[in-house]
Each structure stands twice: as C-alpha cells, then as structure tokens.
C-alpha cells in the first residue's frame, strides 16, 4: 500500500513535468494574413499559440471578456509592444515578429500566457 502511494506520487510528479514543461499544446493557429481573433477569458488566451513568419505583420484582434484587472493589458515580451484591452470591445494589435523564435505574450501578472512561434 505504502509503496503504491509513493509510486503514484512519483508518477504524478513525472506527469506534471511532462505536461507543463516538456510537451506543448498541439493546437496552433497559423497566421495566414487574415486577422486572428483571440478571446481573453477564464485565465487563457484562445487560441494561445500562434505561428507566424518572421517579418510578416500579423493582426491580432483581442476580445477581453474577463473584467479582472490582471487581464487588462497584453504585453509581448521582447518585442516592446503592449496594449490595453478594453472589456467587451475588440482591440487590434499589429505585431511584426522580427526574428524566428518564441515570443511570449502575457498579462501583467503572467496569469494569461500565450506564445508567438515565429519561423
């Protein structure tokens, strides 16, 4: 019994490491030139992973439904872009990713977290 519980605990740790750090979401939205709608609600950006090409501007249209203040800004790390998101009103943010790589976009507190995957 005790061995079983300990084993289960270790498996849980392994699953945490795998799920949150090693694997990444399969659902990606690929930028095609059309604007991409991003819903800001319930602690996540939907879609949260966006694939784009370096040097090609993409239009991200944020719609914030969550009234809590941590959702009020979206900050693109390393790109020097930020925008204030009004509640219930679309806000367009145009981003031109400079070089291939991964750029996080988050709220102030980093509770909302999304990723821009640039190829």
């Amino acid at each position, binding site marked *: 019994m005790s061995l079983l519980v300990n084993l289960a605990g270790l498996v849980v740790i392994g699953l945490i490491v795998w*799920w949150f750090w090693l694997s990444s979401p399969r659902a990606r939205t690929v930028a095609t030139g059309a604007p991409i709608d991003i819903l800001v609600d*319930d602690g996540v950006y939907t879609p949260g992973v966006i694939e784009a090409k370096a040097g090609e501007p993409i239009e991200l249209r944020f719609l914030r439904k969550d009234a809590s203040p*941590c959702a009020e800004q979206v*900050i693109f790390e390393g790109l020097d872009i930020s925008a204030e998101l009004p509640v219930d*009103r679309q806000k367009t943010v145009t981003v031109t990713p400079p070089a291939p790589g991964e750029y996080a976009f988050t709220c102030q507190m980093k509770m909302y977290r999304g990723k821009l995957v640039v190829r």
Partner: protein
Amino acid sequence: MADSEHSYRFSIGGMSCAGCVAAVENAIRAVPGVREATVNLGERTASVSGEVAPEAVVAAVGQAGYEAAELRGIADEAGKEAAEMAHYRRLLWKFGVAAAVGFPLMGIDWLGLMPPLAGWGQAFWIVTGLVTAGVMWFSGRQFFVGAWKAFRNHNANMDTLIALGTGSAWAYSWLISLWPTLVPALARHVYFEAALIIIALINLGAALEMRARGKTSEAIKRLIGLQPRTARIIRNGKEMDVPIEEVGLDETVRVRPGEKIPVDGVIIDGHSNIDESMLTGEPLPVARGKGDEVIGGTLNKSGSFLMQAKRIGADTALARIIELVRSAQSSKPAIGRLADRISAVFVPSVLIIATLTLLAWFNFGPEPRVSYMLAATMTVLLIACPCALGLATPISIMVGVGKAAEFGALIRNGEALQRARSLTTVVLDKTGTVTEGRPRVVELLPAEGHDEAGLLRLAASIEAASEHPLAEAVVAAARERDIAPETVEGFEAVSGKGVRARLAGAEVLFGNRRLMAESDIAVDDWEGRAKALADAGQTPMYLAVDGALAGVVSVADPIKADSAEAIARMHALGLKVVMLTGDNAATAEAVARQVGVDEVFAEVLPEQKEEKVGALQARGEVVGMVGDGINDAPALARADVGFAIGTGTDVAIESADITLMRGSLHGVVEAIAISRATVRNIKQNLFGAFIYNGIGIPLAAGVFYPLGILLNPMIAGAAMAMSSVTVVTNANRLRFYKPKREVRA
C-alpha cells in the same frame, strides 16, 4: 465569433459635396468585413459596422483621397470605470456569500458543536455538502474554469493552485461524509468551511487589489481629465456644441475665454493668451495669434478665437502623450525579468513541491496521517501565489512612470527608467538647455553725449536689415521699449565683423572690435569694460557714428533662472555635470562658472557631440545627455539615457528616452529621482514576494512542524489573497513620493 461585429465612428476630412459622400462610402464598403457604412456630409462623419479593423477603414478612405480618423474618446474611459465597478461589486458579492456560509460553519466547529458522522449527522453533512457546492459554484466557479482551461493549454496559474487546494478539500469532505469508515476515525474531519472561507478571502483580496490598483493609474486619469468633453464648432455657418469625438478634421472651432482648447489646431482668427502649464509645466501663459498652433487640453485665458482642427482623436498631442505613458507603464525593465522567468515555471514547481509534501507526510507524518497530509498539501498549494511575483515590477513601473508624467517627464519605457537610476554623469547642451537659447540685449553702455534709447535706436535701425541672430535680439529689445527703427541707406554686412550703413547722412558702424580697429576708431578706453562683459558670458558689440564711438550694446543668451539650482540638485544626487557647447571657451567658461558645472567642453562641433558622450562612456561613466532633441539627436541616442528638453508637444517625444515637457532642468533631476525611487520600490516588492514564498512554502509544507509550527490552510488562503494587495499597496506609496526640492549647500 459573433462578438467581433462592432460599430465604429470616423471623422472624414476633405469632403465638400454629395459626390464625395458616395466616393467615401464606396471606399469603405469595399473593405472586407464591412457590413454597413453611412457617411454624413453635415457632420463629416462615417458610421461603419461589421467585422473590420478600424485601421483598414482609415487606410481605404486615405486611398480614396480623403482623410479619416477613428472617433474615440472619454466614452471608453467611462465604460472602463463602469465595468470595473461592476466587477468590484461582483467580487464583494462572491466574498459575502461564501463568508456567510463559511464563517458560521467554522463557528460551530470551534464551539465543538459539529454533528457526528453517523445517523442524522451524516444527513446534516450531506446537506451542508450540497449547500457548499452551490456556494462554490457561485463564488469560486471562475477558479475551476480557469484552471481547467489553462491545464488544457499546458499552462498552470493561480487558478490552478486555488482550484486544486479548495477542490481537494471539498472532495475529501464529500468522501468522508458519504463513507466515513474509509478513513481512520481520528482523521474524520470535514473541510467544507475551509474551502468556503478560502474562496471568500481570495475574492475579498481580489476586490481590495482592484481598489488599490484603481489609484495606481491616477496620473493617466488626470491626463485624460484634461480633455474637454465638448467643442463649439461652426458647421454650415451655424455654431453648435458637439461632443469632442465628433469634431472633424479641418473643421472650424470657436474657443471662448476660460475654455479648454478641444483639439490641436491652428488659429485662423483672433488671438489670446494660452496657459499651457498642464502639458508643459511652463507657468506663464503664452501669447498666440493667427497662424500659431494651439494644443488640445490647454486653457484659453483671455481672448476668443477661431481655430481649424488639425489633429483630432488619437492624433492629438495629448492623446499621444497618454498613449506613451500607457505603453511605458506596461513595459518592463531588466530587473523584472528574473521574476518573469521564475513565475513562468512557478506553478508547476509548486505542484511538484505539493506532491512531495504529501509523500513526506504520508511516509513520516504522525497520526492522523491522512488529515495532516491533506492539510499540509492544501496549505502549500494555497500559500504559493504567483501573482505577487508577477505584479511586483509592473505595478511599480505603472505608478513611477505616472508620477514622472505628473512632473512633466515622459519616460519612454521601463528600460529607460531603470537606466536613469544608475546615471553617474549628466551632459548638458548649453544653448537652449542651460540657457534660454534666445539671445537678448542685456546691457546698453552709451558713451558720453549719448543715451540708452538713442544707442538702441541706432543699433536697431542698422540691424533691422540684418539676418544675424544677434540682430534679432537688438531689434526685439527696441520693440520692447517702443523705439521705432529708422530707415537706413547703403546697408552692408562685413562678414565676421559687423554691419555698416548710412543713417540721416551719418556713417554708422555696428560690430566687434575688429570692425572698429579696421575703421580706426579708438576703443581703448572700453577695453576693460568689454573684457568684463565677455568674462560674464556676454558678447559686447561696438557702435560708432561718424568715426566716434557711441557706445556698447552687450548681448547674451541668458541663463535660465533655475539652471544653477537644478545643477546643484544634480550634485546633491551625486551626479557629475558636464556642459557641451559650440560656443567659444570664454563664454562657455563664464556660463559654466555661473551655474556650477564640473567640466566644460567648448567649441565642440555638432557632429562631435556624440563623440564626447562616447569618450565619457569610455571613462566608465553612465551618461545622461540633455539636449533639445533636434541637432543633438545623435548624442541623445548615444547616451545611456537621452533627455529631450522642452519638446513636449513635438513628434520628438517618440525619439528620446525621456522627454521633458517643460524647458527646465529640474525635470532631469525629478526624472532621475523618481526613477531611483521606483527601482527601490520594485526591489522592495520583489524582496517581499520572494521572502513571502521562500518562507511561506516551507512553513506550509511542515518543515517547522518539529518546532510545533504548522500553518492552517485558511490562513494560507488569506495570506495568498493579501500578498498581491501588499504589493499593490507598497507600489501605491510611490504616489506620495516627492523629489526633494531644496538643496543644502
């Protein structure tokens, strides 16, 4: 998504007839996603609805040969405030309902009146469980939904921790309510009240945080408050008051005395004195007349005038300043990145620590093991809040940048703010920075047989035809004293020396010593006085009539009244002050002495300024360069922090690291002092957040249990809720920060 359908309003410039209306309408309708477009010629506006980005509409109208600008205004802010209030009240309700059920349950427990887990007692617990479920659905559903959605995205956040902590307490409570015999008798404790109280407290914390946050953006609110709400426009010959958002490009606006100027534009009729202090900090009203630009948000003091709107909506200087402050408020300096990196891996790490805690209690814990295991694990989950860590930097930046804006210093981003704090040397451009940049006649020294007015009349008459900057000073001085210049004949400029002309038959010479020497005019008696003037940083000019000296007019670029005081304050901050100028060494030295700078680089060509900054950096100095933004641009860019001075209404606000809206050097001192205070505040916040988690997590895990210390999950929940409130409150202290004004010698 059905929600992406929106309606926008635009102002359209350049329309004159019904044909234009059709052209604009067609251009807008051709934009993909537009469902409806109506153009109103009388109002010069367009209403557009559909799934479309407003920028695309503006571009399309532009291509059709008209100007469009999205009409947006204070309505947004009012809406934001209302949404915030509604959210605040909702949080309080959630707190209230959870507390109203949770606290009585806790009271029963403390009084030892808990029913047993058998017979009628079991029925009591099952009913309690159902009530609790309802309350948790009302007060805490957002945590569970958020946790689940984040989990599916391979993310973990604060919601994850709360949902796991309270969810496991709730599930365990149901388990023993239904099947009490599953766990040892000693461990049969129900945690329904703990789950409710934790959820109540976290909602309360969020509400308090929201209240405190509202204050952090006061600076922005003040700037927005400068925007007037209505404007009096003249449309088709009729005057009417319209909301500010409806003022179109090129429309004629009437501004009456005591009113705020609604948008940026140009005066087309009338003149007035305008108080621009709200934007530039310049205390004295400035005179503006036909052809002069006026800035929206400033106050028209005396006269009434008509102006033409040149920049509206998001294009006005005020709107750009607000936008700049806003975007600076959300950018982060390097100091915050460590916290960012930690908070990115924080929650999964806490989950692992929680699992290890569970295993440790399971293997080595005292009886009732199940109870300890659950309580400790839950406490670990609840006390670890990534919020305080994530909030520590941005919230201080927000207040600090806003504070600086209050003092007329626009800081471009968090990086500039952080670098400004570590400056060791400030380089000042002389002309226009230390001095006013506008030469003035400071002394009139008539020779025997002449008087001041006569001397000035002669000088102004001969200079009226000249284009030299010093000539402008002489002419202006004459105008100030109501001295009308006379017409001269045979005007001739002698390069590098001065000018000569004939006035009423007399030969008049005006220029430097070399010009006098050339014409054999004796100036020996004046040598001493002239040298004294030059030593004081002035430029003496000799005036001779028919071969005899009539006197000396001394011109200088006056030092700004508060330069010396501001430089003393820089010294008080431990900064070295260097002056850079293209002027000759004698003048530069004289100015330097009067204001107290430590080092002077004189006779520096504009293109060498950047090199000088580089040389200082090579010496290991962290250099802040203060200049007027145009000819100093390369040096400003080269410096660690570039301060553009007195260009608050220019496009230049986007090129400097820090823009000082008023022309005083005090702004530099204040920006540096505020940046130091802000970085100190960030460090306090980060220290607090790290310590809080650094002590809180081991404490919750039970590391100090051998000493008899173990944390209650409810206290952990309260602490979590309070951690971000603490950070926001500490950042709020910055609002009361005042840079020291007095200098001790």
